[in-house]
């Protein structure tokens, strides 16, 4: 243990702890922009500077390790002046259009400016001026609001290994952009939105579809919403509720109040997804062909695979994502059932994800889902319509597409899809109704997790990864023929969908764990916890889809992948 003083208070920390982290534990949250616990600390924003007794210069507390006997002052006059000057330097080069900014009231730059009581900016002169990049279907990039903390590029390059954006030019002319003057649409961006949830300002935000949804709600079309598994565990945060508060019932009521005719649960489609994927897995496992099988619920991972690992794509499940399964069923089965033309139905997907906006625009899904709203956008829609969310009564999803199991609930966090698939695959391979269905080993926040089960003397090795850098390492193994697994789940976002690019901020690890717990609780409290026991799903197959993995199921529930060029 190392003893030191912070603001004259005796504190202790471990060898290698940084000053900023120790101060946080003792209740001082030193302002910072470029620090992110998942990234290498670069000490670039210089907002976190503190004074250390005996040192001539101020030091960056985010990346200076504590030493025995240090005397740190986090808010001396000198420190506060330096911090304020750095804030003023950032603000002098910022468009300051707070009230018209999408991040108004959730922006870190704005928050610190208020906390530091900055009522005047000493510096004036040129500002960097850039055109807003609207080209991407998923992400809006406004460099006029960028403070160059570099979190987005480090997430994109170091964690996701996509390298869609980087820092360009020198000094004052620094900017973050895709290479060679390309826009976001032309870049290798996979739309995961991990940059969006890392951005402290309004420089990177989701591409908003709220206006389109409002127009649809005010038209004479039949409006349907589907909500993804993770939304119920995160939406409450948009209204100040503690992270991990389940708000399923309120969310359904609010959607009805907003004007949706029907509210369906993507969880049902998740159960169907498991039925199809488990069928596919068992077939491949028995034939020992094209293993490992990789899950394909995540549209960011799909684009990543299409770009960088096309030769390995036969490992991908042909099964659509739950979103696309539900969209397909609504525009075929359900449209027929209620006697409406598919084009008279407007389907709005409520998703945790910016990449889902891209997914519904894939040519093979034309005419299915009409809009994707992220969790953050749904929160904004409810606020726009002045829905008193916190005090709403609870209500249930509509039928016949509203019933789901515990297996579907956990789709929203890393490891959940694999856990759900293993529950079904193990039952089918043994022919029993197994009681041991908790795969706790794959529920953690580790980016690579393994599970093994032995059925009839045969071992199944499963693996769960999240973040695309981790996925890349696994795919390199597959490419070299050294991958030991039979079944793999890949999610692009850290933590899975609960950490998606459309989720409310902040998305630190503690929050992600609380959100995950909400989903696990939902699973544990369900009577039915296996996808193949979902009565509505079984009925659907009997009435409409035919056999599991059959011809009609393939037509409506499966898809194809294409080679994509990238720069």
């Amino acid at each position: 243990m190392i003893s030191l003083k912070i603001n004259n208070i005796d504190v202790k920390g471990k060898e290698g702890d940084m000053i900023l982290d120790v101060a946080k534990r003792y209740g001082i949250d030193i302002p910072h922009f470029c620090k992110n616990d998942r990234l290498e600390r670069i000490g670039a924003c210089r907002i976190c500077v503190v004074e250390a007794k005996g040192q001539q210069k101020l030091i960056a507390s985010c990346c200076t390790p504590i030493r025995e006997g240090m005397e740190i002052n986090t808010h001396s006059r000198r420190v506060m002046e330096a911090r304020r000057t750095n804030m003023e330097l950032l603000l002098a080069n910022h468009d300051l259009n707070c009230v018209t900014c999408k991040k108004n009231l959730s922006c870190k730059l704005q928050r610190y400016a208020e906390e530091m009581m900055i009522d005047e900016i000493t510096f004036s002169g040129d500002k960097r001026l850039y055109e807003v990049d609207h080209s991407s279907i998923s992400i809006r990039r406004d460099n006029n609001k960028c403070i160059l903390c570099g979190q987005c590029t480090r997430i994109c390059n170091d964690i996701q290994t996509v390298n869609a954006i980087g820092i360009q030019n020198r000094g004052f002319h620094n900017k973050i952009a895709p290479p060679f003057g390309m826009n976001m649409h032309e870049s290798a961006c996979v739309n995961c939105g991990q940059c969006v949830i890392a951005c402290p300002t309004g420089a990177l935000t989701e591409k908003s579809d709220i206006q389109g949804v409002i127009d649809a709600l005010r038209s004479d079309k039949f409006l349907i919403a589907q909500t993804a598994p993770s939304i119920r565990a995160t939406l409450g945060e948009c209204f100040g509720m503690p992270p991990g508060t389940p708000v399923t019932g309120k969310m359904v009521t609010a959607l009805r109040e907003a004007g949706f005719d029907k509210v369906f649960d993507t969880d049902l489609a998740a159960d169907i997804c498991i039925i199809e994927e488990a069928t596919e897995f068992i077939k491949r496992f028995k034939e020992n062909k094209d293993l490992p099988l990789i899950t394909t619920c995540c549209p960011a991972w799909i684009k990543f695979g299409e770009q960088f690992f096309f030769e390995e794509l036969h490992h991908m499940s042909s099964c659509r994502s739950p979103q696309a399964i539900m969209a397909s069923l609504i525009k075929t089965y359900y449209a027929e059932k209620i006697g409406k033309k598919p084009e008279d139905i407007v389907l709005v997907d409520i998703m945790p994800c910016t990449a889902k906006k891209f997914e519904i625009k894939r040519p093979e899904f034309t005419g299915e889902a009409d809009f994707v709203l992220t969790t953050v956008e749904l929160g904004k829609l409810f606020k726009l319509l002045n829905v008193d969310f916190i005090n709403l009564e609870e209500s249930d999803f509509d039928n016949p597409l509203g019933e789901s199991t515990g297996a579907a609930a956990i789709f929203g966090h890393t490891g959940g899809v694999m856990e759900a698939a293993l529950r079904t695959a193990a039952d089918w391979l043994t022919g029993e109704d197994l009681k041991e269905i908790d795969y706790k080993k794959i529920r953690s926040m580790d980016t690579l997790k393994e599970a093994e089960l032995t059925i009839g003397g045969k071992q199944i090795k499963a693996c769960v990864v999240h973040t695309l850098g981790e996925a890349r390492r696994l795919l390199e193994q597959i490419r070299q023929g050294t991958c030991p697994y039979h079944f793999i789940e890949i999610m692009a976002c850290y933590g899975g969908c609960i950490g998606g690019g459309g989720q409310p901020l902040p998305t630190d690890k503690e929050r992600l764990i609380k959100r995950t717990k909400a989903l696990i609780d939902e699973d544990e409290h369900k009577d039915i916890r296996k996808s193949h026991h979902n009565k509505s799903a079984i009925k659907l197959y009997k009435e409409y889809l035919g056999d599991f993995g059959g011809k009609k199921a393939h037509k409506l529930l499966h898809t194809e992948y294409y080679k994509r060029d990238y720069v």
Partner: protein
Amino acid sequence: MQILRKTELKAYKKAKKIGQKGVIEILSKKGLVGRGGAAFPTARKWQFAIDTKSDTKYVICNADEGEPGTFKDHLVLEKVPENVIEGIIIAAETIAAKQAYIYLRGEYEYLKPKIQKAISSVLKRSGSKVKIDIVVGAGAYVCGDETAIIKSIEGYRGQAYLKPPFPPVEGLWGKPTVINNVGTLANVPQAILFDDWDPHLRLFSLSGDVTKPGIYEFPMGVSLKKLIELGKPKNPVKAVYFGCFGGCMPYKEILLTPENVCGQNCVIGAGTIIVVDNTHSIVDMAETIAKFYAFESCGKCTPCREGSKRCLDLIAKIQSGKATKQDCDTLLDLALHIHETSLCGLGQTATNHLITALKYFREEFEQKCKLH
């Protein structure tokens, strides 16, 4: 000049004979320190790399001489490139590196054939198996910083990063790396070979308002007046700049030691002396140097990226006659702020010239300001 005495691979042969321990001992005893400006003992730097266990190690020769007014390495590379290469192979074999790089300043690219020839000749004659490649920089001043050199050679943006880990422990591609200045490496064989090698001799780059600019070799502690008189200034000298990063002082007699120069709030660095006579305005100097730093900031940290531009804006305002004395205060505060909070050596020294100019020549700034 001592620096131009050729060693003709005799030092390499001696180094082979006395071995790793012998080389470290001799360099340490003779007191060779870095010639890049920081004056860190060379033997100690090498020892750090020796002590770090790794199957791969590197040596980098820092030939990115980018400090305005500095041209001593140019002379060495032009006149005695073989000595530098000999220094490189001694360094590499002492720390057990199989690969060395010469990071050559972009503007010195025309020296590449000459250096290449020296490499071939030295490797052939010595029989050393060390591989030496020349990497030509793209013209960024910050790449004179050792961590930025590493990033640049690795193919990334040439930007400084945080130390520790220091390069001798974790450097190029994460491997122990010794980075030495051209002048240091040229001195290595001389220090090993010549009994009369003088550790105190330094090269001074003299330029500015003098009629005989050039490289002068003197021991540390030489009289500033003597040095400048050798340059034969045409007009009365007003100020001396120690390069751009070292700051300025009013011209007067001092003995040029690091301590004495520090006493004038300046940094002697690599022995750069830019003379300014009474026909030039310090505000013009400030503007020129501030432009240089605004252009050369890599943009990684806030104070250097934004602050160097705002310094330039404030100087432009002073030049335009629209500024008030208040603006001079703001400029000084900002200059001190950049010095105090920047990430790397570039930012931390980028405003030394302003801090010292506003200390010693404030009236020149104020004369340009409005009266209130």
